[in-house]
């Protein structure tokens, strides 16, 4: 189908070409709603309002199948069908329901059109597709300190959805004859499989990201959350990025070239928050994700990016010093990295983690392996015994039993 030759329905309400009227009527209905939305958000960008006023656009009707938007939706629907079958999707009704409720709290009536999928992936990411498919990666959930921070990210994603940035971007991309490049990144089959990620992460411009930030701030504050937590999300991410990018990582990270620099983003969000305060709801967040924390920590350790993981765990343990799972995870990273002084640091963490009432069974394994490494046969034997008593069918039980027989008396 021919494509509209303009960048965005928001900025170029030019007359429609024949054959596209139905689509543009649909687009302009959205423009009206988005115009009001833009004004409200624009005002908040100038001076933080006392009480965020915002008129959300009405629910988006399904686009005509023969429109470019309809084509995009169809692609996303296929991607969502694939995602539903994917073994990477976490099938936890309670956690998904918690996230869906949060979307409803932020997005009002649009929550009926948004479907949240939790994806097992240790990286920090969330995406929002124009058909209402929202993906939240487990690595993002692991990095949130409270519900307010999660609301900031989901509010940001809803901002993309409400302003229909994916559609803007698709038209902009096509208008610049860059479709080949767009597809060439993944191949045709790969494009279908990755479009959710592409639309959510690759395609948005810096301006769209900034607009989504501003709208997300309004949504989270309207729902009663502390807007300053949005700034902390980027502060925390900066801490990890500095590991690979140096102290000025936030100002020139090429991986985030389409995003505002995180350092600027943090400052702008803090300004938008306006010091009004609000809810954090940390206990509710902990209750929702607590059952998955250990598996996500193990996935983080398995990435093998030890310095980034340590930045994350150090921050987490400052906040939750008695979190046995996170203390085990940090000890495990030190044990595996084996840099100068690491084995001693590992011992501190693993002894403390294994002594906790909620000690993960893996803490005993790690402590035994560490003590064996340090030549402390007695301590290694005691830790291995505890590990095998708790997990006699462990996948590595044969190796651990061999280690036990090899330990000097």
């Amino acid at each position, binding site marked *: 189908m021919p494509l509209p030759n303009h960048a965005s329905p928001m900025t170029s309400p030019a007359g429609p070409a024949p054959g596209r009227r139905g689509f543009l009527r649909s687009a302009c209905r959205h423009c009206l709603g988005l115009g009001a939305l833009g004004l409200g958000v624009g005002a908040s960008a100038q001076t933080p309002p006392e009480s965020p006023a915002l008129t959300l656009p009405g629910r988006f009707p399904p686009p005509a199948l023969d429109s470019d938007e309809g084509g995009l939706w169809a692609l996303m629907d296929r991607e969502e069908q*694939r995602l539903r*079958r*994917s*073994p*990477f999707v976490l099938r936890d009704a309670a956690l998904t329901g918690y996230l869906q409720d949060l979307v409803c709290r932020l997005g009002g009536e649009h929550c009926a059109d948004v479907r949240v999928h939790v994806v*097992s*992936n*240790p*990286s920090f990411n969330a995406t929002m597709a124009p058909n209402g498919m929202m993906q939240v990666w487990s690595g993002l959930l692991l990095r949130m300190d409270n519900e307010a921070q999660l609301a900031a990210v989901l509010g940001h994603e809803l901002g993309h959805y409400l302003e229909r940035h994916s559609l803007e971007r698709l038209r902009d991309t096509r208008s610049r004859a860059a479709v080949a490049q767009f597809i060439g990144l993944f191949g045709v089959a*790969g494009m279908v*499989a990755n479009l959710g990620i592409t639309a959510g992460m690759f395609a948005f411009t810096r301006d769209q990201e900034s607009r989504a930030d501003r709208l997300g701030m309004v949504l989270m504050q309207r729902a009663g959350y502390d807007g300053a937590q949005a700034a902390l999300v980027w502060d925390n991410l900066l801490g990890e990025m500095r*590991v*690979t*990018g*140096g102290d000025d*990582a936030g100002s*020139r*990270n*090429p*991986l985030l070239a389409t995003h505002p620099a995180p350092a600027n983003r943090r400052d702008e969000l803090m300004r938008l928050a306006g010091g009004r305060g609000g809810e954090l709801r940390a206990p509710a967040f902990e209750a929702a994700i607590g059952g998955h924390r250990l598996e996500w920590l193990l*996935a983080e350790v*398995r*990435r*093998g*990016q*030890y*310095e980034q993981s340590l930045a994350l765990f150090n921050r987490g343990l400052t906040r939750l010093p008695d979190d046995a799972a996170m203390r085990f995870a940090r000890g495990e990273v030190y044990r*595996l990295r*084996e840099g100068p002084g690491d084995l001693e640091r590992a011992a501190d963490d693993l002894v403390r983690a294994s002594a906790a009432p909620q000690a993960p069974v893996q803490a005993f394994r790690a402590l035994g*392996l560490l003590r*064996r*490494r340090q030549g402390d046969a007695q301590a290694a034997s005691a830790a291995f015994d505890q590990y095998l008593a708790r997990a006699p069918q462990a*996948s*590595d039980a*044969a*190796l651990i039993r*061999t280690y036990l027989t090899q330990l000097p008396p």
Partner: protein
Amino acid sequence: MNTLRLSALLAAGFLLALLAGCAAVVKIEGEQNVKSRMSVRVGQAWNKVSAPGSEQPYEAWTQDGFNLDHLRLWAGVRSGQALVGQAPAAAGQRALRVPVFRAGMAPDQLANLFEVLYSADGSQVQVTRLEPATFVGEQGVRFELSIIRKRDDVPLSAVGWVAVRGDELFAITYVAPRLGFFPRGRPGVEAIAASARLR
């Protein structure tokens, strides 16, 4: 029958792609010399694939294409050497870590290198078996992994052997789709691992 036809088509496609990318494919069978440090005996024929410009510290073999079976063989990896080539870092960035062998690693640490290696692309990896084993005449470790491949959600199985001789690492890993391909290829790979000798 359908599976065979599909695998033949995939293999043909794979070979075509390799030719287009100028990768070198050599049919191998019988006694094979790996990186001049290890010899193995190959029962059925394999294809040894090497792509100019992207040399790796291991040899890569396949029968039906890397998506369907992937045998990797490391021989004589020195302390401080990575198990895979490191992607260049972006400007101003430090390169991401890759698994690096260090002399003196315990068997569990050796196996962990491969757990990290196969997790690197975002695939889900779980160690399903880890046990002492003799490999290249040394006491080493044998491991089995369950993998969900990130790019296409395909469940894979993997088996591997790793041992150290004189501060150098020797290893073989085999990865294939859990259904059909892995059970079919595993006996041959077990035989290859059992035949591995130092040169």
